């Protein structure tokens, strides 16, 4: 009886929340388009302000660069918490890995995956992509290594210390460009004017490509550390 009452109560709560959401949507005004406000400004002047063809990258690393710094700090906080919680094991016990064919094929494919990751990072201001997306692709390499070759291989090639150094380097690049903004332009993380080049070339758009590279290192190393911390206990139990 008690359980039935509980379920009835929860169902009533669910229905009430659904109804409240529906009511909210009926009361909401229509979307008024881009004719006013910050979106119109960014679409009209974004290319001339920042030199970045990709307006989303312009918003992320120029207009809201300080917010992106806080975002990478959130990743750093998550990585720190996970490593702190799961930090008992010294060395991971290796899995056996997959078969010979899979290992050889991955050996051929891996440079291209890395190339694609660096391409997405470095062309963030010209085409879809950027530091976060490319960093995730780079972290995928580490994850595939752990699955296919076994975790000890990944440990030997790219040890957690190397990943920590890479993440720190990424954060320092971001902060260094921010401080250079104070010295050169008078505001933290403002776009460095002397780096601007012709629009559409690879080295253009002021400090945006460099921030992209820093964020790419940071996200890639951070996600690899998260994955690596999570698999250790599992491998010790299974093999």
């Amino acid at each position, binding site marked *: 009886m008690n359980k039935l009452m509980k*379920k009835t109560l*929860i169902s009533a*709560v*669910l229905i009430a*929340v*659904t109804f409240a*959401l*529906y009511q909210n*949507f009926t009361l909401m005004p229509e*979307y008024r*388009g*881009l004719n006013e406000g*910050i*979106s119109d400004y*960014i*679409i009209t002047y*974004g*290319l001339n302000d920042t030199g970045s*063809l*990709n*307006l*989303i990258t*312009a*918003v*992320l690393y120029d207009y*809201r660069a300080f*917010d*992106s710094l806080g*975002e990478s700090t*959130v*990743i750093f*906080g*998550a990585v720190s*918490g*996970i490593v702190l*919680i*799961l930090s008992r094991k010294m060395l991971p016990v290796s899995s056996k890995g997959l078969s010979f064919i899979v290992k050889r094929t991955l050996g051929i494919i891996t440079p291209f995956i890395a190339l694609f990751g660096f391409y997405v990072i470095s062309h963030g201001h010209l*085409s*879809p992509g950027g530091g*976060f997306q490319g960093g995730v692709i780079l972290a995928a390499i580490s994850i595939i290594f752990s699955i296919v070759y076994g975790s000890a291989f990944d440990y030997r090639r790219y040890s957690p210390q190397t990943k920590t150094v890479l993440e720190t380097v990424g954060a320092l690049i971001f902060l260094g460009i921010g401080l250079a903004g104070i010295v050169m332009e008078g505001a933290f993380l403002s776009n460095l004017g002397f780096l601007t080049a012709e*629009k*559409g070339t690879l080295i253009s758009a002021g400090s945006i490509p460099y921030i992209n590279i820093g964020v790419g290192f940071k*996200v890639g190393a951070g*996600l690899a550390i*998260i994955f690596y*911390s*999570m698999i250790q*206990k599992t491998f010790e139990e299974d093999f």
Partner: protein
Amino acid sequence: MLNNLIFIILFMLGFYALIMKTNLIKNVIGLNLMEAAVFFWVISFSDIGGEISIHKLGETMGEFNDPVPQALTLTGIVIGASTAALLLTLIIELNKFSGTIDRDKIEGLND
């Protein structure tokens, strides 16, 4: 409005999984489903059928879609991934201590 309807369905599915299920990993899945519903809604209501908001050199572009909600969604996705990883780590630790991930059967956390 179809996107509002889909948002409500997705969001309530996530909310259902968060409240009714007792498996903690299913709760995390429900939380991520709620996030995904919000991201879907933010992207879909700002889509006015224009072009992707990336300039092409030497071409006059038509009307762009709004770039600001897309940038905000990117921020939200990254933070959602971070919180999901931290929650799953806590569940792994909980499984080590109490041997279960069912939130009604957790015992022995007092000592």
